[in-house]
Protein backbone atom coordinates (compact mmCIF):
# COMPACT_ATOMS: atom_id res chain seq x y z
CA UNK A 1 0.00 0.00 0.00
CA UNK A 2 3.02 2.27 -0.49
CA UNK A 3 1.77 5.02 -2.75
CA UNK A 4 4.57 7.22 -4.09
CA UNK A 5 3.67 10.66 -2.84
CA UNK A 6 4.10 12.23 -6.30
CA UNK A 7 1.24 10.18 -7.66
CA UNK A 8 -1.43 11.81 -5.53
CA UNK A 9 -0.01 15.25 -6.25
CA UNK A 10 -0.21 14.44 -9.97
CA UNK A 11 -3.87 13.50 -9.63
CA UNK A 12 -4.54 16.78 -7.85
CA UNK A 13 -2.73 18.75 -10.55
CA UNK A 14 -4.70 17.03 -13.30
CA UNK A 15 -7.96 17.72 -11.50
CA UNK A 16 -7.00 21.36 -11.15
CA UNK A 17 -6.09 21.59 -14.83
CA UNK A 18 -9.37 19.94 -15.80
CA UNK A 19 -11.36 22.44 -13.80
CA UNK A 20 -9.35 25.35 -15.17
CA UNK A 21 -9.76 24.11 -18.72
CA UNK A 22 -13.51 24.53 -18.47
CA UNK A 23 -13.17 28.26 -17.96
CA UNK A 24 -11.82 29.87 -21.12
CA UNK A 25 -14.19 32.75 -20.46
CA UNK A 26 -15.67 33.76 -17.12
CA UNK A 27 -18.66 31.45 -16.77
CA UNK A 28 -20.55 33.82 -14.51
CA UNK A 29 -21.16 37.53 -14.86
CA UNK A 30 -21.44 39.84 -11.84
CA UNK A 31 -25.24 40.05 -12.15
CA UNK A 32 -25.49 36.25 -11.99
CA UNK A 33 -23.93 35.87 -8.55
CA UNK A 34 -27.04 35.99 -6.42
CA UNK A 35 -26.87 32.36 -5.34
CA UNK A 36 -23.10 32.18 -5.02
CA UNK A 37 -23.20 34.35 -1.89
CA UNK A 38 -25.40 31.91 0.00
CA UNK A 39 -24.02 29.79 2.83
CA UNK A 40 -24.68 26.65 0.85
CA UNK A 41 -22.27 27.80 -1.86
CA UNK A 42 -19.37 28.75 0.38
CA UNK A 43 -16.71 26.37 1.68
CA UNK A 44 -15.53 28.83 4.36
CA UNK A 45 -18.87 30.06 5.66
CA UNK A 46 -18.13 29.35 9.33
CA UNK A 47 -14.43 29.42 10.25
CA UNK A 48 -15.05 29.18 14.00
CA UNK A 49 -17.09 26.02 13.55
CA UNK A 50 -14.31 24.63 11.36
CA UNK A 51 -11.74 25.54 14.02
CA UNK A 52 -13.57 23.56 16.71
CA UNK A 53 -14.15 20.63 14.39
CA UNK A 54 -10.52 20.51 13.33
CA UNK A 55 -9.41 20.42 16.95
CA UNK A 56 -11.77 17.66 18.02
CA UNK A 57 -11.25 15.51 14.92
CA UNK A 58 -7.50 16.00 15.19
CA UNK A 59 -7.67 14.52 18.68
CA UNK A 60 -9.69 11.49 17.57
CA UNK A 61 -8.44 10.68 14.07
CA UNK A 62 -4.83 10.19 13.05
CA UNK A 63 -5.23 11.69 9.62
CA UNK A 64 -5.43 15.41 10.19
CA UNK A 65 -2.46 17.51 9.15
CA UNK A 66 -1.17 18.10 12.64
CA UNK A 67 -1.08 21.85 12.29
CA UNK A 68 -2.94 24.07 14.71
CA UNK A 69 -3.67 21.15 17.00
CA UNK A 70 -2.19 22.15 20.33
CA UNK A 71 -2.94 19.90 23.26
CA UNK A 72 -1.02 17.79 25.68
CA UNK A 73 -2.32 16.46 28.95
CA UNK A 74 -5.81 16.00 27.56
CA UNK A 75 -4.57 13.40 25.11
CA UNK A 76 -5.18 15.74 22.22
CA UNK A 77 -1.84 15.06 20.56
Amino acid sequence: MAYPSWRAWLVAALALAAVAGCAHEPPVQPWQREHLAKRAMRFDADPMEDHFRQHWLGAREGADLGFGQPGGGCGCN
Partner: protein
Amino acid sequence: MEARGADQVTVRGAYYREPSTRVIQPVVDIQKDLPHGVDLDAHYLVDAITSASAAAGTTKDSIFTEVRNEVALAVGKNWDRTRATLGYRYSAESDYWSHGLGGSLAGRFWGDTATVALSLGVSLDTMSSRDRPSPDCAVAPHTYCTLDSYFAGLSYTQVLSPVAVAQVDGEIAYLDGFQGNLYRQVPGLGYEKPPDQRLRNAVAGRFAYYFPSSSTGVQLHYRFYWDLFPGTAPTPTDPWLMRAHTIEARVYQKLSRSLEVRLLYRQHLQNRAQFWCDVTLNSSCYQPVAMSSPPTYSADPKLGPIHTEYPEVKLVWDADGLRAVPFLRWFSAATFEISYGYYMQNDSFRNAHVLQAGATMPY
Protein backbone atom coordinates in the same frame (compact mmCIF):
# COMPACT_ATOMS: atom_id res chain seq x y z
CA MET B 1 -10.94 33.68 -0.33
CA GLU B 2 -12.87 34.31 2.82
CA ALA B 3 -15.52 36.95 2.41
CA ARG B 4 -15.42 39.89 4.78
CA GLY B 5 -18.50 41.66 6.00
CA ALA B 6 -19.12 44.48 8.40
CA ASP B 7 -17.62 44.69 11.87
CA GLN B 8 -19.04 41.84 13.87
CA VAL B 9 -18.69 39.87 17.05
CA THR B 10 -19.35 36.14 17.34
CA VAL B 11 -19.98 34.26 20.55
CA ARG B 12 -19.98 30.46 20.39
CA GLY B 13 -20.15 27.55 22.75
CA ALA B 14 -19.35 23.93 22.04
CA TYR B 15 -19.96 20.85 24.13
CA TYR B 16 -18.39 17.47 23.32
CA ARG B 17 -19.17 14.42 25.42
CA GLU B 18 -18.05 10.84 25.11
CA PRO B 19 -17.95 8.23 27.92
CA SER B 20 -14.48 9.23 29.16
CA THR B 21 -14.09 12.82 28.03
CA ARG B 22 -16.09 16.02 28.22
CA VAL B 23 -15.05 19.26 26.53
CA ILE B 24 -16.68 22.65 27.01
CA GLN B 25 -15.38 25.38 24.75
CA PRO B 26 -16.64 28.97 24.88
CA VAL B 27 -15.27 31.31 22.19
CA VAL B 28 -15.51 34.98 21.41
CA ASP B 29 -14.38 36.29 18.03
CA ILE B 30 -14.25 39.94 16.95
CA GLN B 31 -13.79 41.21 13.42
CA LYS B 32 -13.05 44.83 12.65
CA ASP B 33 -12.65 46.59 9.33
CA LEU B 34 -10.09 49.37 9.20
CA PRO B 35 -9.34 51.96 6.51
CA HIS B 36 -7.22 51.17 3.43
CA GLY B 37 -8.59 47.63 3.01
CA VAL B 38 -7.16 46.37 6.29
CA ASP B 39 -9.13 44.17 8.67
CA LEU B 40 -8.51 42.51 12.01
CA ASP B 41 -9.79 39.23 13.42
CA ALA B 42 -9.14 38.26 17.03
CA HIS B 43 -10.46 35.41 19.10
CA TYR B 44 -10.15 34.03 22.59
CA LEU B 45 -11.27 30.56 23.55
CA VAL B 46 -11.13 28.27 26.54
CA ASP B 47 -11.07 24.49 26.36
CA ALA B 48 -12.20 22.94 29.63
CA ILE B 49 -11.44 19.25 29.25
CA THR B 50 -12.51 16.75 31.86
CA SER B 51 -11.14 13.34 31.11
CA ALA B 52 -10.80 9.89 32.63
CA SER B 53 -8.03 7.45 31.92
CA ALA B 54 -9.29 5.87 28.69
CA ALA B 55 -9.51 9.09 26.72
CA ALA B 56 -6.50 10.66 28.37
CA GLY B 57 -4.39 7.76 27.28
CA THR B 58 -2.84 7.26 30.66
CA THR B 59 -2.84 4.06 32.63
CA LYS B 60 -4.05 5.74 35.77
CA ASP B 61 -7.65 5.40 36.78
CA SER B 62 -8.20 9.03 37.64
CA ILE B 63 -10.31 11.93 36.50
CA PHE B 64 -8.76 15.33 35.91
CA THR B 65 -9.72 18.65 34.39
CA GLU B 66 -7.38 20.51 32.09
CA VAL B 67 -7.93 24.05 30.90
CA ARG B 68 -6.48 25.34 27.66
CA ASN B 69 -6.49 29.03 26.76
CA GLU B 70 -6.02 30.21 23.20
CA VAL B 71 -5.70 33.70 21.77
CA ALA B 72 -5.24 34.55 18.12
CA LEU B 73 -4.92 37.70 16.06
CA ALA B 74 -4.98 37.91 12.27
CA VAL B 75 -4.48 40.93 10.05
CA GLY B 76 -5.82 40.98 6.50
CA LYS B 77 -5.16 43.36 3.67
CA ASN B 78 -7.27 43.57 0.51
CA TRP B 79 -6.20 44.95 -2.83
CA ASP B 80 -8.24 44.94 -6.03
CA ARG B 81 -8.19 41.17 -6.60
CA THR B 82 -5.73 40.05 -3.99
CA ARG B 83 -5.97 39.34 -0.29
CA ALA B 84 -3.15 38.64 2.14
CA THR B 85 -3.41 37.59 5.78
CA LEU B 86 -0.92 37.15 8.57
CA GLY B 87 -1.91 35.59 11.86
CA TYR B 88 -0.45 34.55 15.21
CA ARG B 89 -1.92 32.08 17.68
CA TYR B 90 -0.85 31.22 21.21
CA SER B 91 -2.24 28.28 23.15
CA ALA B 92 -1.37 27.36 26.71
CA GLU B 93 -2.13 24.49 29.06
CA SER B 94 -0.42 23.63 32.31
CA ASP B 95 1.92 21.29 30.44
CA TYR B 96 1.64 22.25 26.76
CA TRP B 97 2.40 25.54 25.03
CA SER B 98 2.08 26.29 21.34
CA HIS B 99 3.00 29.27 19.17
CA GLY B 100 1.57 29.34 15.67
CA LEU B 101 2.35 31.76 12.86
CA GLY B 102 0.53 31.56 9.55
CA GLY B 103 -0.01 33.57 6.42
CA SER B 104 -1.96 33.32 3.20
CA LEU B 105 -2.08 34.98 -0.17
CA ALA B 106 -5.13 34.67 -2.43
CA GLY B 107 -5.82 36.07 -5.86
CA ARG B 108 -8.96 36.15 -8.02
CA PHE B 109 -8.85 35.63 -11.78
CA TRP B 110 -11.13 35.08 -14.80
CA GLY B 111 -13.59 37.80 -14.00
CA ASP B 112 -13.49 36.92 -10.32
CA THR B 113 -14.68 33.38 -10.96
CA ALA B 114 -11.41 31.66 -9.99
CA THR B 115 -9.43 31.95 -6.77
CA VAL B 116 -5.98 30.59 -6.08
CA ALA B 117 -4.85 30.64 -2.44
CA LEU B 118 -1.51 29.74 -0.90
CA SER B 119 -1.21 29.18 2.85
CA LEU B 120 1.95 28.73 4.89
CA GLY B 121 2.31 28.13 8.60
CA VAL B 122 4.64 27.08 11.35
CA SER B 123 3.78 25.82 14.83
CA LEU B 124 6.35 25.57 17.62
CA ASP B 125 5.15 23.48 20.55
CA THR B 126 6.68 22.75 23.92
CA MET B 127 5.46 20.13 26.36
CA SER B 128 6.34 18.80 29.78
CA SER B 129 5.01 16.09 32.06
CA ARG B 130 3.80 16.35 35.62
CA ASP B 131 4.69 12.69 36.13
CA ARG B 132 8.14 12.68 34.53
CA PRO B 133 10.67 15.32 35.55
CA SER B 134 12.84 14.53 32.52
CA PRO B 135 11.09 12.62 29.74
CA ASP B 136 13.16 10.69 27.17
CA CYS B 137 12.38 13.15 24.41
CA ALA B 138 13.84 16.07 26.35
CA VAL B 139 17.30 17.18 25.30
CA ALA B 140 19.49 17.91 28.32
CA PRO B 141 19.73 20.26 30.09
CA HIS B 142 16.09 20.96 29.21
CA THR B 143 13.28 19.04 30.87
CA TYR B 144 10.71 19.63 28.15
CA CYS B 145 10.07 18.16 24.72
CA THR B 146 9.34 20.01 21.50
CA LEU B 147 7.31 19.54 18.35
CA ASP B 148 7.88 21.76 15.31
CA SER B 149 5.33 21.69 12.49
CA TYR B 150 5.60 23.32 9.08
CA PHE B 151 2.52 23.55 6.90
CA ALA B 152 1.80 24.54 3.28
CA GLY B 153 -1.47 24.45 1.39
CA LEU B 154 -2.57 25.41 -2.11
CA SER B 155 -6.19 25.65 -3.18
CA TYR B 156 -8.00 26.48 -6.41
CA THR B 157 -11.67 27.44 -6.40
CA GLN B 158 -13.65 27.83 -9.62
CA VAL B 159 -17.15 29.12 -10.14
CA LEU B 160 -18.53 26.83 -12.83
CA SER B 161 -21.96 28.37 -13.30
CA PRO B 162 -24.33 30.70 -11.38
CA VAL B 163 -25.24 27.70 -9.22
CA ALA B 164 -22.07 25.54 -9.16
CA VAL B 165 -18.66 25.95 -7.49
CA ALA B 166 -15.76 23.48 -7.33
CA GLN B 167 -12.57 23.48 -5.29
CA VAL B 168 -9.44 21.34 -5.24
CA ASP B 169 -6.63 21.70 -2.75
CA GLY B 170 -3.47 20.04 -1.58
CA GLU B 171 -1.83 20.27 1.82
CA ILE B 172 1.47 19.11 3.21
CA ALA B 173 2.90 19.26 6.73
CA TYR B 174 6.27 18.26 8.11
CA LEU B 175 6.42 17.41 11.79
CA ASP B 176 9.65 17.12 13.74
CA GLY B 177 9.65 16.27 17.43
CA PHE B 178 7.66 14.31 19.97
CA GLN B 179 4.32 13.31 18.44
CA GLY B 180 2.78 11.32 21.25
CA ASN B 181 1.43 11.90 24.70
CA LEU B 182 3.89 12.17 27.59
CA TYR B 183 1.46 10.39 29.93
CA ARG B 184 0.38 7.50 27.72
CA GLN B 185 2.00 4.13 28.37
CA VAL B 186 2.18 0.83 26.52
CA PRO B 187 1.69 -2.15 28.86
CA GLY B 188 5.01 -3.85 29.53
CA LEU B 189 7.05 -1.25 27.65
CA GLY B 190 6.42 1.99 29.46
CA TYR B 191 5.88 5.46 28.06
CA GLU B 192 5.11 5.50 24.36
CA LYS B 193 7.78 6.34 21.78
CA PRO B 194 6.32 7.20 18.37
CA PRO B 195 8.63 8.08 15.46
CA ASP B 196 9.81 11.66 15.74
CA GLN B 197 9.41 12.75 12.12
CA ARG B 198 6.39 12.63 9.86
CA LEU B 199 5.40 14.01 6.48
CA ARG B 200 1.64 14.37 6.19
CA ASN B 201 -0.15 14.97 2.89
CA ALA B 202 -3.72 15.46 1.78
CA VAL B 203 -5.61 16.26 -1.38
CA ALA B 204 -9.25 17.25 -1.32
CA GLY B 205 -12.05 18.13 -3.69
CA ARG B 206 -15.28 20.00 -2.92
CA PHE B 207 -18.32 20.70 -5.03
CA ALA B 208 -21.34 22.88 -4.28
CA TYR B 209 -24.58 23.13 -6.25
CA TYR B 210 -27.69 25.22 -5.62
CA PHE B 211 -31.26 24.49 -6.74
CA PRO B 212 -33.02 27.89 -6.85
CA SER B 213 -36.46 26.42 -7.45
CA SER B 214 -36.47 24.70 -4.05
CA SER B 215 -33.89 26.91 -2.26
CA THR B 216 -31.74 23.84 -1.68
CA GLY B 217 -27.97 23.70 -1.63
CA VAL B 218 -25.80 20.58 -1.76
CA GLN B 219 -22.11 20.18 -0.99
CA LEU B 220 -19.94 17.10 -1.52
CA HIS B 221 -16.43 16.81 -0.07
CA TYR B 222 -13.79 14.14 -0.50
CA ARG B 223 -10.33 14.03 1.09
CA PHE B 224 -7.48 11.57 0.71
CA TYR B 225 -4.70 11.55 3.29
CA TRP B 226 -1.38 9.75 3.38
CA ASP B 227 1.77 10.08 5.45
CA LEU B 228 5.30 8.74 5.56
CA PHE B 229 8.60 9.07 7.32
CA PRO B 230 10.59 11.75 5.43
CA GLY B 231 13.91 10.52 4.08
CA THR B 232 15.28 7.19 5.25
CA ALA B 233 13.32 5.68 8.09
CA PRO B 234 15.33 4.47 11.09
CA THR B 235 13.27 1.29 11.13
CA PRO B 236 13.41 -1.48 8.47
CA THR B 237 10.07 -0.34 7.03
CA ASP B 238 8.40 3.06 7.01
CA PRO B 239 6.70 3.33 10.42
CA TRP B 240 3.82 5.53 9.19
CA LEU B 241 2.18 4.79 5.79
CA MET B 242 -1.23 5.72 7.10
CA ARG B 243 -3.97 6.19 4.47
CA ALA B 244 -7.38 7.75 5.03
CA HIS B 245 -10.48 8.49 2.98
CA THR B 246 -13.00 11.05 4.19
CA ILE B 247 -16.31 11.86 2.51
CA GLU B 248 -18.81 14.46 3.58
CA ALA B 249 -22.18 15.51 2.22
CA ARG B 250 -24.16 18.58 3.25
CA VAL B 251 -27.68 19.62 2.35
CA TYR B 252 -28.84 23.18 3.03
CA GLN B 253 -32.57 23.81 2.92
CA LYS B 254 -34.38 27.09 3.43
CA LEU B 255 -37.40 26.47 5.66
CA SER B 256 -38.55 30.10 5.58
CA ARG B 257 -37.14 33.46 4.57
CA SER B 258 -34.94 33.59 7.66
CA LEU B 259 -34.60 29.97 8.80
CA GLU B 260 -32.29 27.40 7.25
CA VAL B 261 -31.51 23.81 8.18
CA ARG B 262 -28.26 22.05 7.33
CA LEU B 263 -27.98 18.28 7.33
CA LEU B 264 -24.47 16.86 7.34
CA TYR B 265 -23.07 13.36 7.09
CA ARG B 266 -19.36 12.56 7.32
CA GLN B 267 -17.55 9.25 7.12
CA HIS B 268 -13.86 8.64 7.78
CA LEU B 269 -11.87 5.47 7.10
CA GLN B 270 -8.19 5.00 7.89
CA ASN B 271 -5.74 2.14 8.18
CA ARG B 272 -3.21 1.88 11.00
CA ALA B 273 0.22 3.38 11.15
CA GLN B 274 2.62 0.56 10.30
CA PHE B 275 4.50 0.68 13.61
CA TRP B 276 1.26 0.58 15.63
CA CYS B 277 -0.38 -2.53 17.01
CA ASP B 278 -3.40 -3.01 19.23
CA VAL B 279 -2.14 -3.70 22.75
CA THR B 280 -5.71 -4.11 23.97
CA LEU B 281 -6.02 -7.24 21.79
CA ASN B 282 -2.48 -8.56 22.17
CA SER B 283 -0.44 -7.09 25.00
CA SER B 284 2.82 -8.53 23.66
CA CYS B 285 2.41 -7.46 20.04
CA TYR B 286 5.09 -4.81 20.37
CA GLN B 287 7.87 -7.04 21.66
CA PRO B 288 9.71 -7.68 18.35
CA VAL B 289 9.48 -4.06 17.31
CA ALA B 290 10.48 -2.76 20.69
CA MET B 291 13.75 -4.68 20.46
CA SER B 292 14.72 -2.95 17.23
CA SER B 293 16.63 0.29 17.23
CA PRO B 294 15.22 2.80 17.74
CA PRO B 295 12.15 1.34 19.42
CA THR B 296 8.80 2.77 18.34
CA TYR B 297 5.55 1.94 20.07
CA SER B 298 2.34 3.69 21.01
CA ALA B 299 -1.00 2.95 22.60
CA ASP B 300 -2.68 5.90 20.88
CA PRO B 301 -6.06 4.66 19.53
CA LYS B 302 -6.11 7.26 16.76
CA LEU B 303 -3.09 5.64 15.09
CA GLY B 304 -5.00 2.41 14.60
CA PRO B 305 -7.59 1.38 12.00
CA ILE B 306 -10.48 3.74 12.52
CA HIS B 307 -13.94 4.07 11.08
CA THR B 308 -15.99 7.06 12.18
CA GLU B 309 -19.36 8.42 11.13
CA TYR B 310 -20.86 11.78 11.98
CA PRO B 311 -24.43 12.87 11.22
CA GLU B 312 -25.35 16.39 12.29
CA VAL B 313 -28.30 18.74 12.04
CA LYS B 314 -27.91 22.51 12.29
CA LEU B 315 -30.40 25.36 12.34
CA VAL B 316 -29.44 28.89 11.30
CA TRP B 317 -31.78 31.78 11.98
CA ASP B 318 -31.30 35.27 10.56
CA ALA B 319 -33.15 37.30 13.16
CA ASP B 320 -34.41 40.09 10.90
CA GLY B 321 -37.94 39.22 12.02
CA LEU B 322 -37.15 40.92 15.32
CA ARG B 323 -36.98 44.30 13.63
CA ALA B 324 -40.58 45.07 14.57
CA VAL B 325 -40.26 43.90 18.18
CA PRO B 326 -39.45 46.59 20.77
CA PHE B 327 -36.09 46.19 22.48
CA LEU B 328 -35.38 42.92 20.65
CA ARG B 329 -34.88 44.85 17.42
CA TRP B 330 -31.34 45.42 18.67
CA PHE B 331 -30.73 41.81 17.71
CA SER B 332 -32.46 41.94 14.32
CA ALA B 333 -29.15 42.00 12.45
CA ALA B 334 -27.86 38.96 14.32
CA THR B 335 -27.61 35.38 13.15
CA PHE B 336 -28.22 32.57 15.62
CA GLU B 337 -27.30 28.95 15.10
CA ILE B 338 -27.49 25.67 16.97
CA SER B 339 -26.36 22.21 15.98
CA TYR B 340 -26.32 18.68 17.31
CA GLY B 341 -24.21 15.83 16.00
CA TYR B 342 -23.49 12.25 17.01
CA TYR B 343 -19.92 11.08 16.49
CA MET B 344 -19.64 7.30 16.11
CA GLN B 345 -16.19 5.76 16.65
CA ASN B 346 -15.14 2.14 16.45
CA ASP B 347 -12.22 2.51 18.87
CA SER B 348 -11.94 2.70 22.66
CA PHE B 349 -13.09 6.33 22.78
CA ARG B 350 -16.63 5.21 21.82
CA ASN B 351 -19.44 7.45 20.61
CA ALA B 352 -19.82 11.14 21.39
CA HIS B 353 -22.48 13.84 21.49
CA VAL B 354 -21.52 17.19 19.97
CA LEU B 355 -23.62 20.28 20.69
CA GLN B 356 -22.79 23.75 19.40
CA ALA B 357 -24.54 27.10 19.61
CA GLY B 358 -23.54 30.56 18.51
CA ALA B 359 -24.59 34.08 17.66
CA THR B 360 -23.03 36.58 15.30
CA MET B 361 -23.91 40.24 15.50
CA PRO B 362 -22.64 43.30 13.67
CA TYR B 363 -21.67 46.32 15.76
